[in-house]
């Protein structure tokens, strides 16, 4: 029992991070049908910027974070949308997805060429303390991560449902043509979703890098796991991404303890394939209308 609790809590913390990255996936999918295979690199880059700020410019973490947030909002949000999405969106899903694969290669290897292939430690934004309750070790950091992700989800939800801009963004996501008719400035709102995605990625970077350690390939497995999470939960639903992330995180841990560790990735993967085959809209997703 203790063991289940122990690995479940760790899994939730890991899963919360997957969820955060996965939410970005769903955001972009909903508004522009973009599958961003570079999502993991969108986390790696702000982490790299923060580390650069801390190590090279000697900035405090908070300042470095704000700087990285702004730069990635501009670069991975606005510039990404203008330079890559806009010219390619009319070609359909596949060329865009391929382009993001190209982007992955460029970003990952660019950072490696600049900063080398070694892993680097990264400061914790929250203090790390261990509490032991009934033989189960709780890390204050894990709890802070789960709480931060919950806070981000809550804030994002408030923004999407509680503000005019947010509601318009949802309208755009659900039906861009109708949104145009309603007089919504679709272009600007799509731009917002890209900026929000980049900001989410930067926030994820702040939470994840102390645990993952900074390395040029930081985004590789993170992006893939987040992708599994988004599919499992529901590609067109924000809460789907959240639940999917938690499921993947917990499942990985449980299967490593109670199933063959060498196949621990296979369990989440198996679920991923099953969901695609039997519930392609995801566990929590809405069914998408098939277009003739």
């Amino acid at each position, binding site marked *: 029992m203790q*063991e289940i609790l*122990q*690995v479940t*809590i*760790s*899994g939730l913390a*890991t899963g919360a991070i997957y969820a955060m990255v996965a939410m970005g996936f769903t955001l972009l999918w909903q508004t522009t049908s973009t599958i961003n295979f570079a999502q993991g690199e969108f986390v790696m880059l702000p982490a790299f910027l923060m580390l650069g700020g801390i190590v090279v410019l000697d900035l405090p973490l908070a300042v470095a974070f704000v700087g990285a947030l702004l730069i990635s909002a501009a670069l991975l949000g606005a510039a990404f949308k203008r330079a890559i999405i806009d010219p390619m969106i009319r070609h359909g899903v596949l060329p865009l997805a391929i382009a993001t694969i190209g982007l992955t290669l460029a970003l990952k*290897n660019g950072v*490696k060429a600049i900063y*080398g*292939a*070694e*892993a*680097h*430690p990264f400061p914790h934004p929250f203090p790390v303390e*261990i509490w*032991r309750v009934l033989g189960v*070790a709780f*890390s204050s950091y894990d709890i802070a991560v789960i709480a931060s992700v919950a806070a981000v989800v809550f804030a994002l939800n408030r923004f999407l449902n509680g503000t005019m801009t947010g509601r318009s963004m949802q309208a755009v996501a659900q039906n861009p043509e109708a949104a145009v008719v309603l007089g919504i400035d679709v272009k600007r709102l799509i731009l917002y979703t890209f900026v929000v995605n980049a900001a989410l990625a930067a926030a994820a970077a702040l939470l994840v890098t102390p*645990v*993952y*350690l900074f*390395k*040029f*390939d930081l985004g*590789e*497995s993170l992006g893939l796991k987040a992708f599994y999470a988004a599919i499992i939960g529901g590609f067109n639903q924000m809460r789907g991404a959240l639940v999917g992330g938690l499921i993947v*995180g917990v499942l*990985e*841990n*449980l299967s*490593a*303890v109670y199933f*063959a*560790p*060498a196949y*621990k*990735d296979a369990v989440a993967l198996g679920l991923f394939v099953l969901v695609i085959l039997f519930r392609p809209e995801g566990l929590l997703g809405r069914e998408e209308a098939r277009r003739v």
Partner: protein
Amino acid sequence: MRKTATACVALAAVLTAAPAVAQDVKFVGIFEMSGPGTTAGTNFKNGADLAIKEINAMGGILGRKIAITSSDTASNPTTAKALAQKAVDEQPYILLGPVFSGSVLSSMIVAQEAGLPQWIGGEAANITQQGNPFVFRTSFSQAQSMPKIANYIAGDLKAKSIAVAWVNNDFGKGGRDQIAKEMGSRNVKVVADLSTEPGQVDFSAVVTRAKQSNPDVLFVYLNEEESARLLRELKKQGWDMKKNPVVGETTLIGQKVIELAGDAANGAQAHVGLTIDAPNPLLTAFAAKYEAAYKAKSDHNGIKGYTGVYVIKAVTEKLGKFDRKAFAEAMKTAQVSAKDNPGVLMSVCFNKDGDLDRDSYLAVVKDGKQVIEKTLPPVGICKVP
């Protein structure tokens, strides 16, 4: 397209031809510069490049400078083999790399057929068990390092049971198989067999399972970053390293691990073949030079690449000529002392298989520093000067 191809060929020809002045001696390097082996391959390459720069500054080998061309195997054995093929075409004196055993296994056949001495970073035991006279190690084979560790675990620590946490790639699986064998012959039971993924982040399940099995010793055979994450998780779950020692190889307590794991590394012990933390002024000096050159600390792969090149220099100079066949022959009984050849950092000898032997250390992390507990003598496969 054809034009581009021609242009590229011409450009490549110009670029490779230009620096290779007639009296230079040619080395070719094939390293894991991208893909999962990037860290290992890059360190190895950096170490080798550093040695070559130094040697060239001192006038080269037998008065000839070393010209090296390196390429990226992308951690893919198919590419590694292709690049070995290319190396053979260029007729170099020495082939350096690769580091991952899979790539070594695919490329060594090519070098062997061409009679090209190959200096590798792989530690899998079977590399040198195939009668290839042209393959040489830069570090212990797992067949030599594991008995040293097994003796320590079964003898000094008097363990009756161990749990093994290993990374599921050729490096980790090879180590796991060897240690399981050695433990079996010493009547120590392996009570948990914990495979982990390369690049794994969350080690809570591994530690939980290790705790469940309650072993006398936890043996860890992971890469540096994963080691650091495991150590953090051990600390978090309250693992008592005094009661249940955590023992590993170089990769458990390297400088990088301590940097990444912080005080969670305290108490971890390891058999260390090559470490910049050894009480050895030559290694300390190397560490400083490496860091100055690459703004990063060298791991054992950096030392492997560096010392490998210096061994080549020492053996060649003793031979007095550049002759690949004679070189391979001389390697079978080569003994290089650090006193006469400071670049090799530690005295070393080779046997007929291409395996090496030298001192190694048992180190423990205390207050964020590697402290050498004792020096472990060579295994005895050849005579260390």
